[in-house]
């Protein structure tokens, strides 16, 4: 990397941080319990809008995995989810009415909160429909992983997005509040992912899975990116550049080995394709608050009207992380 490129990325990172600092005015604290954050606590950052039905299980899942404090931006929910979050003893909530799109799909808001509260902490950035799976997650909490990452001098941890779907049309199995979404959406695509290296940021750009297979067979380049780096030992100099797909400084994106070996990695099980999805797709289409003119949601809405089936004969049924590891979707690396 030349000096010029290095400088350019530095400017870009600074711009991100300045944006984040300016966007702090858009956030209004509803419940601020950040005083309770202790050193070495694992923090979780998220934005949400009308996700009441998902939140109970989401909070329970991450509490059990060792998250100590949740910092959540509520983007003008109307289903009571903000009030629900404000009642939780380990949640701090901020409210905003401003545009999700104009804050770079929530990245600016979270960059600000991370700048303010996450310095020196390990922190996760996930959506309410993303569930973190990592090696030994059935017997070890996330803090075991972060301690090991600390000991190995690793600052960031990769977890590809794995789209989960039910068998049969997605409207067939209604999701109830508090339920494990993977009781319903327990199928996934095991081996149709493609990746290329992003020369600017050094991250891998991964596409594929059921969304590419069913919604984008004619224009696979439009399929959404699946690479994510949701777990980072935060420093106030850092910034997410585009969703949680990539970070600056770019050294944080080096979560893969280039010399034949495997680094440790996990997955974010994506519980997007539940019965709630159809309504969400229609709504998002009207709001125009998503990436590239909501092209993704346009494609979904078009296909969803015929109630498509994502399941196919070669779908794999989720059992546990070891299965995902054997399939080559994630890796233990040298963590044993």
């Amino acid at each position, binding site marked *: 990397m030349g000096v010029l490129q290095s400088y350019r990325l530095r400017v870009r990172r600074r711009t991100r941080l300045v944006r984040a600092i300016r966007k702090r005015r858009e956030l209004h604290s509803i419940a601020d319990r950040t005083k309770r954050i202790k050193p070495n606590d694992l923090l979780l950052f998220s934005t949400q809008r009308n996700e009441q039905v998902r939140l109970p299980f989401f909070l329970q899942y991450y509490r059990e995995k060792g998250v100590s404090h949740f910092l959540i931006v509520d983007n003008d929910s109307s289903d009571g989810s903000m009030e629900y979050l404000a009642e939780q003893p380990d949640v701090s909530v901020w409210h905003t009415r401003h545009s999700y799109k104009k804050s770079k799909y929530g990245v600016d808001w979270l960059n600000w909160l991370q700048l303010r509260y996450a310095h020196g902490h390990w922190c996760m950035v996930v959506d309410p429909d993303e569930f973190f799976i990592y090696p030994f997650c059935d017997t070890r909490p996330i803090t075991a992983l972060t301690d090991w990452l600390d000991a190995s001098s690793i600052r960031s941890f990769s977890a590809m997005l794995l789209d989960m779907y039910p068998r049969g049309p997605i409207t067939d199995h209604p999701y109830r509040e508090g339920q494990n979404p993977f009781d319903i959406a327990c199928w996934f695509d095991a081996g149709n992912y493609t990746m290329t290296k992003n020369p600017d940021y050094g991250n891998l750009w991964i596409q594929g899975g059921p969304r590419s297979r069913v919604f984008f067979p004619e224009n696979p380049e439009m399929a959404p990116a699946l690479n994510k780096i949701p777990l980072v030992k935060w420093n106030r100099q850092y910034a997410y550049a585009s969703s949680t797909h990539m970070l600056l400084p770019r050294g944080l994106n080096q979560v*893969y080995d280039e010399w*034949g070996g*495997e680094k*440790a990695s996990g997955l974010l099980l994506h519980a997007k394709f539940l019965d709630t999805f159809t309504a969400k797709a229609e709504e998002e289409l009207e709001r125009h608050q998503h990436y590239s003119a909501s092209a993704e949601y346009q494609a979904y809405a078009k296909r969803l009207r015929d109630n498509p089936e994502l399941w196919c004969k070669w779908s794999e049924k989720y059992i546990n992380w070891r299965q995902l590891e054997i399939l080559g979707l994630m890796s233990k690396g040298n963590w044993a």
Partner: protein
Amino acid sequence: MSVGILMLVHTAFDRAEQIARHWVKYGCPVVIHVDLNVKSKTCKKFENALVDLDNVQFCKRHRCEWGAWGLVAASQSAAELMLAEYPDVKHVYLSSGSCLPLRPVEELKDYLKARPQTDFIESATTADVPWTVGGLDNERFTLHFPFSWRKQRFLFDRWVDIQRMLKIKRKLPPGIVPHMGSQWWCLTRQTLSVILQNPERAFFDKYFKRVWIPDESYFQTLVRVYSKNIESRSLTLSKFDFQGKPHIFYDDHLQLLRRSDCFVARKIWPRANRLYDGFLRDPDGAIKMSEPNPAKIDRIFAKAVERRTKGRTGLYMQSRFPNDGWENGMTFGRYSVFHGFSELFEDFEPWLYKATGAQVHGHLFAPESAEFTEGQKVINGALSASPKNRDYNSIAFLTNLIWNTRGERQCFQVGPCDEGAPVWFFAKDPNAQVSVISGAWALPLFKANQNFADIRKEAARLQKLENKQLWALRSPYAKARVRIWTMAEFIEAPMEPLQMIIDEIGAGAANRLAEAPRMTDLSGFGQFLQNLKNQGMHPYLMGDFPVETPEQRQKMPQRKPYLVQK
């Protein structure tokens, strides 16, 4: 009282306290060294927590940093205090705050009582072991290391370079041969006291202060001078990964640790409650006298390191994306590519399946759709037949297919029409077996019954495309098992090459082929080629086909559909 425990502590004080209490409870005095980097308030709190125990002492504190002298100084101070305060102690065991005794203390005492003169310390000459991290082995002892590896890496590296360039070498103190090994030892009072009290100690200390990672070499080297009976192994189970960091044990290692029969394990995750609860109990059952046997744990950790450094062959994923040439195998396993066979033989694909049992696909890279076996639209791993999806990254398509069908050999057809086929990729892949009958693309045209002008145009296009593919397969970079026949060559004796290909696929039994695939009718093909030539389009890839006259054809014997086995 026979064993004294030295504990080096710098973090997780609640666990260290728990361990210290455990040792004392079973009659082992403990001397604790607390890292000087720890705040005095924290240290004081820790000392107070243990104030009720008589047999716990705290020694002089040193600043400990990995790779530096402090750890040796700490061990020395602790050992001196131990030897002075507890004259009954016959063996001294060096451990850390994150060590966990796995077997009842009585068993350790008995074990050592049965070996009163033995020093347990891993100690090997540098020339013979590949343990070193950072490329420094013998140079640890012959260069100067004034800079910290952790905090001043740049200066550290440059200073090493400069010394190498200037050929600066330290002189080894006379009488010692450098040895290295695990820093966790258990020495007899006799050996330890002679190391600590001998008149030359100041001289040795001065030398080792500037050696890199002296905690892995100070005692290991000196013990070779003074000890009479060395068991070169550590009683502490401690495994290191490829970066020289210790592996950590968690709750799920409980059974593994129990079966290892090791006395002490390092290092334990401080929050592994099940391990601490499980091993710090009163011993139940009879006292065992078994030897430590960490082989299984060794295997697990060795595998983990291999996974990290070599990875899984043929896998491309979020945390393994090798640069060109670093793949350790570009694809998971062997596969076969057939070029021109399904054109020449009418039932080639079913025949191949019957002969080999492999999964036989049609033209995987056909422009219309990937022709998966049995006309499936999606195949293993939910790989889609959509041509756009496939051509978006055709190499990933192929590597995914081979990875998804691990354990089942894949065969597929390729032809000049399949422009998206990653020919260069499989030409370079040693796992590929590529068999080509060149010029077979003319057969479908020969049977097409179209305007001859169109046929001529198409023939010219296909010939050009196939030539390009052959160029890749013939290039010096091609590492695949490539065989190329012209069509004329092939039809003269088709069974021999077929047998060779099938044998190489090796579907178990090395049978002679009983049945040949049915060759398409070639009568008139020579004339067809001549017509193309007459139109100015010279087809050269199929070799020399004679223009056969009807009379000649009648003379030719009928082809036998079956071969008779001798």
